[in-house]
């Protein structure tokens, strides 16, 4: 009950000095706002970058032939497939060519590959099917196109069965991929099409079935680092030097992203925590002023029987109320701020709940920490001296 009374008194004391209370709270408001918005934005941004990376496939190892002599042949790929850690292998021959659709035309990257690429890269087919073994065996002119290609060049999504011209050659569309996220589109080519590798080598000038420029691998149980290790060993033997090939483990991107996220959150959170601390010092300052101003009141309260612990509690609750109201206002502003970012940036970020909780705990901690000294000072006042104070 005393706590409830102290809260009532704290509220009326804060209300009676609105401007001063607001200015005091401003430190906490800005601190909480900075903490919550910055950390939420960092985790939101890295979250969407990570999911975009997932879309282009993270559980794969890419090897590029840098000799120019042509080392990867289809037969050699069959040998590599036998490596214990390797699950699937897909050759990639790529070329850039002009696409002519009935609606529009555009420059596209054209991948020549086999059916394995679909599961290695985790491609999702929305309509129709992906390239299959007979397509490769028969050198058929069929194509799987990205969603954006279908919409932009052919005017709608489901265009399975229609014809698309790649560099003047007609290709029958057998599949349309799922729409990728806006961010994935940013880091990938807008238009992407996949054709059987046997068909691709006819139009590509940078690869043949005996000189495949790029190979994608997936690992058994998704273990890409084992694949990377085995391939490095095998290819060093084959090429004679590590300089002759380039090997890249795509999962390194996401672990690098995790590190960047953690570092950025810590850095920005740290800066915000410092501003919260400064806000706390502001509270301490104003509480000291308040204790001095209200010396008479403290004296009166003590004379009529307030125990030191009650005076302590009253001022402590006042300091905590200041910082908690500041925290709540800060959280509301953070929410509004993130909505504004969402509208302006056309993104979908939300307040990170753990960070909001950290903000609440931290501000009440700041309130207690910086309220304690002034409250103790008030509680320790001698009633006779306090009553005589003018």
């Amino acid at each position, binding site marked *: 009950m005393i706590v409830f009374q102290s809260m009532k008194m704290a509220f009326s004391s804060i209300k009676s000095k609105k401007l001063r209370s607001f200015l005091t709270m401003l430190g906490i408001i800005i601190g909480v706002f900075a903490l919550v918005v910055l950390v939420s934005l960092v985790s939101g941004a890295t979250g969407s970058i990570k999911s975009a990376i997932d879309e282009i496939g993270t559980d794969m190892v890419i090897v590029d032939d840098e000799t120019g002599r042509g080392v990867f042949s289809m037969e050699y790929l069959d040998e590599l497939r036998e490596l214990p850690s390797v699950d699937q292998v897909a050759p990639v021959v790529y070329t850039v060519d002009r696409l002519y659709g009935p609606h529009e035309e555009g420059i596209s990257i054209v991948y020549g590959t086999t059916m394995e690429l679909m599961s290695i890269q985790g491609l999702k087919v929305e309509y129709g099917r992906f390239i299959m073994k007979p397509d490769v065996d028969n050198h058929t002119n069929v194509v799987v196109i990205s969603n954006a290609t279908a919409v932009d060049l052919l005017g709608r999504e489901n265009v399975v069965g229609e014809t698309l011209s790649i560099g003047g050659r007609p290709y029958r569309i057998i599949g349309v991929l799922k729409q990728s996220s806006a961010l994935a589109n940013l880091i990938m080519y807008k238009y992407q099409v996949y054709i059987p590798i046997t068909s691709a080598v006819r139009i590509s000038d940078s690869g043949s079935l005996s000189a495949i420029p790029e190979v994608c691998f997936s690992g058994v149980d998704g273990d890409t680092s084992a694949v990377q290790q085995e391939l490095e060993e095998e290819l060093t033997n084959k090429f004679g030097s590590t300089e002759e090939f380039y090997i890249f483990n795509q999962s390194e991107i996401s672990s690098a992203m995790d590190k960047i996220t953690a570092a950025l959150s810590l850095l920005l959170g740290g800066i915000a925590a410092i501003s919260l601390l400064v806000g706390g010092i502001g509270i301490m300052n104003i509480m000291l002023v308040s204790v001095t101003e209200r010396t008479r009141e403290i004296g009166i309260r003590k004379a009529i*029987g307030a125990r030191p612990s*009650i005076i302590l509690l009253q001022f402590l609750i006042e300091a905590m109320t200041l910082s908690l109201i500041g925290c709540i206002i800060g959280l509301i502003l953070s929410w509004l701020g993130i909505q504004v970012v969402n509208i302006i940036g056309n993104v979908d970020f939300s307040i990170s709940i753990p960070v909001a909780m950290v903000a609440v705990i931290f501000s009440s901690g700041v309130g207690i920490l910086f309220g304690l000294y002034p409250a103790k000072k008030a509680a320790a006042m001698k009633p006779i001296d306090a009553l005589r104070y003018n």
Partner: protein
Amino acid sequence: MIVFRNVSKVYNMGGEQVRALWNANIHIKQGEFVAVVGPSGSGKSTLMNIVGCLDVASSGQYLLDGIPIDRYSEKQLAIVRNKKIGFIFQNFNLIQTMTAEENVELPLIYQGIGKNERKARVREALQKVDLYERRAHTPGQLSGGQQQRVAIARAMASKPSLFLADEPTGNLDQATGAQIMNMFRELHKQGNTIVLITHDDNVAKQAERSIRIMDGIVTETREDRAGS
């Protein structure tokens, strides 16, 4: 009721001992109306602080209602002040930011009394000083006499065993002062114990008897002076 046995209060000021109160022996019985009279600097404030449990004696014994108030901690003193003593000060000492009602209620909150009883007692006390209609006013909206009546209501609400008034009419004009003194006589008639501290013999005359204090030495005046 109130018993001082050789109570002394000695301050150490720059190595020099100042005897603010020296070997005081006082007996005040329950239901008495006693004035403590002395010029300023005579030690009457020290006496009042000790009687009111705002301070403890350096030596000697002080019994309040038979309980020795020796070497009490701040917390214990606060509890005694809360339950046994009703202060009325020269400058009223009401909390400016609180209404009359809240001021009267405050000691009851500190006593831990439940809301319903608190409200009832606040109402009763404010009605007795004829200020219930003005309960929502803050001290700044009340005259000096009204503020002092609120202070008396605050003292009454906690039903103390002792009303301790320190120059209660000092800041009031004569007519208002007389009104306040009437209230003390009324309280006395109802059986309350009142200790009134004053420098004014005319005020002191209205009490049953006077205790004189001069340079820290107390002389108890035994003979009764008719209060009315």
